[in-house]
């Protein structure tokens, strides 16, 4: 089923993530309104939006928690709703809320995640050692998660998201609640995944200082995409001298339109 990628796919490889005209509503309240954008393989994309912009809803749809009312989400060409197995096998996720078992050790948490992806204990152990080492916590492998700091837990969650070698990783406000040093560490770690391993990243945040000029930026506001381009291009288009100012102009403008 999922191995049957159509021939010629290598010739024009599909985007890592493609959001196609996705709309969703809770009752009468529209959470997402005709949202479209793509994340290319091996690129770092930032989903920028204030609280309530629709980021969480989009995350729930991409991670198959529930299906969108309209539109499609594809991960490397696999429709999340119809070929969820193949799509989710390519996807690693770091949720905003802490999702590690605090009573279990780092390694046990990693092995559980491996099992959820059908990776047997022996192979998962080897991968866990490798990945936990990579996020700089090799000496904490046998420690209970409870005894780690917030930043260290985030690192473990990133390592865990990589255990099945996904080619796309979603991180939902991964730096929320962390101090400046831990934030920088998590960001650097994630950027290394893009540079060294060609992992595609979708990073959601409301903190504009995490954006680099060459990053792809998707500005989501009140359920609509206001801009989708490199940060540099978004700044140029809005005539702003920083991505923060550009974001302010874009979302402020939308506010005026609505009023």
């Amino acid at each position, binding site marked *: *089923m*999922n*191995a049957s990628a159509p021939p010629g796919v290598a010739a024009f490889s599909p985007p890592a993530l493609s959001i196609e005209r996705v709309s969703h509503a*809770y009752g009468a309240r529209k*959470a997402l309104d005709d949202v479209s954008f793509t994340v290319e393989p091996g690129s770092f994309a930032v989903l920028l939006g204030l609280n309530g912009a629709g980021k*969480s*809803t989009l*995350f*729930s749809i991409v*991670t*198959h*928690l*529930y*299906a969108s009312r309209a539109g499609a989400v594809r991960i490397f060409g696999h429709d999340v*709703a119809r070929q*969820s*197995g*193949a*799509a*989710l*096998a*390519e*996807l690693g*996720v770091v*949720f*905003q*809320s*802490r*999702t*590690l*078992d605090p*009573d*279990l050790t780092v390694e*046990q948490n990693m*092995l*559980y*995640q*491996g*099992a*959820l*992806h*059908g*990776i*047997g*204990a022996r192979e998962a152990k*080897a*991968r866990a050692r*490798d*990945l936990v080492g*990579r996020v700089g916590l090799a000496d904490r492998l046998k420690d209970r998660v409870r005894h780690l700091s917030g930043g260290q837990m985030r690192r473990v969650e990133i390592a865990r998201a*990589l*255990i099945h*070698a996904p*080619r796309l990783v979603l991180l939902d406000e991964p730096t929320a609640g962390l101090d400046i040093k831990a934030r920088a560490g998590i960001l650097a770690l994630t950027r290394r*995944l893009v540079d*060294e*391993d*060609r*992992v595609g990243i979708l990073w959601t945040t409301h903190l504009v200082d995490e954006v680099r000029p060459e990053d792809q930026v998707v500005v989501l506001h009140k359920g609509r995409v206001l801009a989708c381009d490199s940060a540099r291009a978004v700044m140029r288009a809005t005539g702003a001298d920083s991505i923060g100012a550009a974001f302010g102009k874009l979302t402020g403008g939308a506010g005026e339109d609505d009023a």
Partner: protein
Amino acid sequence: MSAVVQGARRPFGLAGYWVCLQGIVWRESLRFLHQRERFVSALVRPLVWLFIFAAGFRQTLGISIIPPYETYVMYDVYITPGLIAMIQLFNGMQSSLSMVYDREMGSMRMLLVSPAPRWFLLTSKLLAGVAVSILQVYAYLVIAYFWEIEPPTWWGYLTILPALVLSGLMLGALGMVLSSLIKQLENFAGVMNFVIFPMFFASSALYPLWRVQEGSPWLATVCALNPFTSAVEMIRFAFWGKLDPVSAAVVLGCTIVFLAAAVIAYDPARGMLMRRGG
């Protein structure tokens, strides 16, 4: 360099399913072992009923000979299957609580992003809960043995096992359906009041149905229709090395219905998960 982005996409084969199921049961057991107080309270609850309630009622409540018993049995022997089912009922509801809790903490979401089909993930999660409940039941039976509650032959300890798996699945699946309906964590008290107590008391767990019939025919009908009664009777017969086909069939049927309802409740396209907005 590292394991990141290496290795081909593996299809989720039969071995993958097996690894996944093992992993879920293994995690649930580890969690259970770390929550000693949960184990103790799961054990103390039926023992309070056995040592205090049953002891008090021993003299007042005579049990006539009803199947599967061929002789007079003491009241504490009579209520043991009911208490075993109660252990599983509490465990099923507690797993449902843990799913609500898990979902809020996000680890339920973690489970649901596994590429395995959702029905398989939910069933595995159920089986993990059942495994834990069976551990609790056998711990109770060991203590009950020293209270001179034992099956007519040692085989009873073995023949009760399939009954425990089936009743555990039914009660766990019911809990899972409820977990998709519970809005907040605090509402477990509501589950106690509106699910656990009525199910337990309106059943043959504490008194045989013919006794209820004498008092209130209407209530006896309710008790007879309560699937928990079927679970209790199935366990009662199994512990005595016998099979009660009717109760076993009812439990099996209810398990299938509850399980289907749980899978629908957690279905991404029409599920109730959507209503709360993640």
